[in-house]
């Protein structure tokens, strides 16, 4: 594994993206802003989100006894995040969460790209619910935001059309002989961390504060589309301004950066990257966000969707290779964390156990700003105590 460089897709993308890049360069002149004017604003109101009224809406989030459903892709992208979530719940909060070894895909990516038919997805969801029922749990917690969207969509469809629910029961029974109950509560893991953010704050060793300046860290939060855009009622703080990550950031001492393309897609949109020829759209979307957030000089990005965190991280390498452009002053890129990694770091978890060395944009600058202790010599130490082969270095992005 070569974590610092995307070895295949990034290079293959370059030719398909040349046209897009040219278009952006043409537009750059039009979009240039008056720098002297901007400087005079002196960061007028970075925290525009202080004017919140949308967080009046809070969804119901179960407090304990959860059935956890893992993500297909998160353990590859961010291998320490799901383990960190389980540890936080079990060890730091003393909660009960069941992690089944019999689980499987929710079909999300296949479903949203029309590869997997609706009836199949419905049956797959029914089987996952049957695993929860079998173990006596009623609070369902899918790790992935796409899975969260799949489950809420099925529950919504079944509520609106009970005949579909009966069909799902019949299909599951014919295929497996299993039965299931509907969950009483469905929450994304970020909902649960959000709901315990104040309790976790009490246990945290660090805050989202720059130890050199004493100022709050400026954090870009990015919410996965399938978290609240499909069903606003299932998101903390509704659809336009979900408060789930912003609430964590504020509770833990940071400052949320609002920027014009905050609500724009990260580039993970399935149809944008599944077909290789279309991947230029994926990079273009991520680039649009980076260009938009750059003037605010964020200290890091946090996301609650596996695809968002992955693409916002990895495409920084691709863009750096294509355009010789990085989005921080020092040339290291903007670190991207999952919310479990953010919580874990502040609780004092070892950054290398959290898997931060497997990110594309390296996080040492962020760790130093917060004052988190880490051993650089153990960054690539495996569980057997041996040092793993060191990764290659990108030509532009510093590591």
């Amino acid at each position, binding site marked *: 594994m070569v974590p610092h460089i995307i070895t295949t897709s990034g290079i293959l993308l370059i030719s398909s993206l040349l046209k897009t890049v040219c278009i952006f360069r043409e537009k750059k002149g039009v979009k240039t802003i008056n720098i002297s004017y901007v400087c005079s604003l002196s960061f007028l109101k970075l925290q525009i989100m202080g*004017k919140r009224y949308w967080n009046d809406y809070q969804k119901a989030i179960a407090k304990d006894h959860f059935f956890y459903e893992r993500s297909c892709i998160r353990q590859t992208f961010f291998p320490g995040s799901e383990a960190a979530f389980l540890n936080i719940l079990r060890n730091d909060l003393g909660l009960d969460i069941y992690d089944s070894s019999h689980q499987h895909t929710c079909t999300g990516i296949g479903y949203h790209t029309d590869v997997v038919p609706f009836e199949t997805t419905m049956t797959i969801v029914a089987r996952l619910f049957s695993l929860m029922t079998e173990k006596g749990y009623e609070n369902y917690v899918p790790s992935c935001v796409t899975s969260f969207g799949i489950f809420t969509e099925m529950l919504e469809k079944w509520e609106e059309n009970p005949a579909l629910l009966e069909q799902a029961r019949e299909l599951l029974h014919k295929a497996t002989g299993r039965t299931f109950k509907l969950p009483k509560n469905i929450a994304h893991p970020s909902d649960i961390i959000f709901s315990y953010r104040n309790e976790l704050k009490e246990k945290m060793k660090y805050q989202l504060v720059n130890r050199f300046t004493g100022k709050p860290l400026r954090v870009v939060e990015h919410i996965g589309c399938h978290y609240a855009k499909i069903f606003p009622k299932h998101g903390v703080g509704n*659809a336009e301004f979900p408060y789930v990550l912003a609430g964590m950031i504020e509770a833990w001492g940071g400052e949320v950066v609002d*920027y014009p393309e905050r609500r724009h897609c990260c580039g993970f949109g399935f149809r944008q990257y599944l077909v290789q020829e279309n991947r230029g759209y994926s990079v273009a979307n991520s680039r649009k966000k980076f260009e938009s957030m750059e003037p605010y000089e964020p200290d890091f990005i946090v996301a609650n969707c596996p695809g968002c965190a992955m693409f916002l991280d990895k495409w920084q390498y691709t863009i750096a290779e294509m355009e010789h452009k990085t989005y921080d002053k020092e040339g290291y890129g903007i670190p991207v964390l999952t919310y479990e990694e953010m919580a874990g770091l502040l609780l004092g978890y070892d950054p290398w156990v959290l898997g931060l060395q497997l990110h594309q944009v390296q996080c040492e600058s962020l760790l130093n700003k917060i004052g988190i202790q880490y051993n650089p010599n153990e960054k690539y130490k495996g569980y057997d105590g041996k040092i793993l082969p060191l990764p290659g270095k990108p030509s532009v992005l510093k590591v």
Partner: protein
Amino acid sequence: MSKIAIIGAGPAGIETATVLARQHDVLLFEKENAPLCNIRNKALLFPDFTSADELANNMMRQLEHPRITTYCDTDITDLRKAQNSWQLTDAKGNQYEADYVVLSTGYQIFDAHKKEELGYGIYPGIITSIDLEKMIKEGKITNSIGDAPKSVTFLQCVGSRDEKSGNHYCSKVCCVTAVKQAIEVRKMLPNTTAYVFYMDLRMWGQGFEEMYRTAQEQYGVNFVRGRISEAAATYDQRVQLKAEDTLMGLPLNMTTDLLVLMVGMCASEGTDRLAHAAGIAGKYNFAQSVSEHLKDNLTEQEGLFLAGSCKRPMSIQDTIQDARAAAITILEQIA
């Protein structure tokens, strides 16, 4: 001679009171500290750019009638039918009795905060048509940092014809108001570009279509058919818009200095409350008349009448005409 209570001292209430006072005693109730607050907030009225203050002053002179008693700061909160009269109660617990009651409690503007995607109350530089009207009245249109905007963009149908907000109806006056305000912006700030995003422009009244043509030909207002889906502040405190131009069939990304949300008309709190208290609440919490064709000022409750925009969105002209119709209906009933 009868005693008639009129609830709401807007144009409908005052016009009804003026006609009825020729023969009857009128008690006119207004919850604000003065009549005609909605008109007083406006600068010029469509389609002929009549001064709103001039109209308000003329209407106030109509109130100087010995048979009209005006109660300001009096919020009527309850309305009940007694045996041969109506009992009214205000927020302070005072009670009033009348033989007949006219509901002229009007409208209130749609709360643009509900359309979170449009950023009102979140980002500077995003205002409502009411906010802009106040700026025009004060003679100074400014962006979020107090400068003259280089571009002003209007968005029609905010809270009207909108399934998301639950208001499926057209508010009737927003289209022509945007045209009027765009012209006023261009008059006050000749170097400012004006854009109007619309679904379709409903120029239903006399002089409206001509005004629309004038806006394009004489004042160079740009009309774009399409909806704005999202607004956000930029780093330099402008407003970034995401929209669709449905004539071009293309998505659109642009920045503007001032975004004006053309907010629609909703039933006022008073209309909602009293229509429900009297059992005449209709669609969208407006008051329901017996028939929109022949009995539009009558209600199912004997002795309770309707005038103006407590029934549905109306222009000021239509409100005044409807108020006169209400007064004549009452006179016919009394006779």
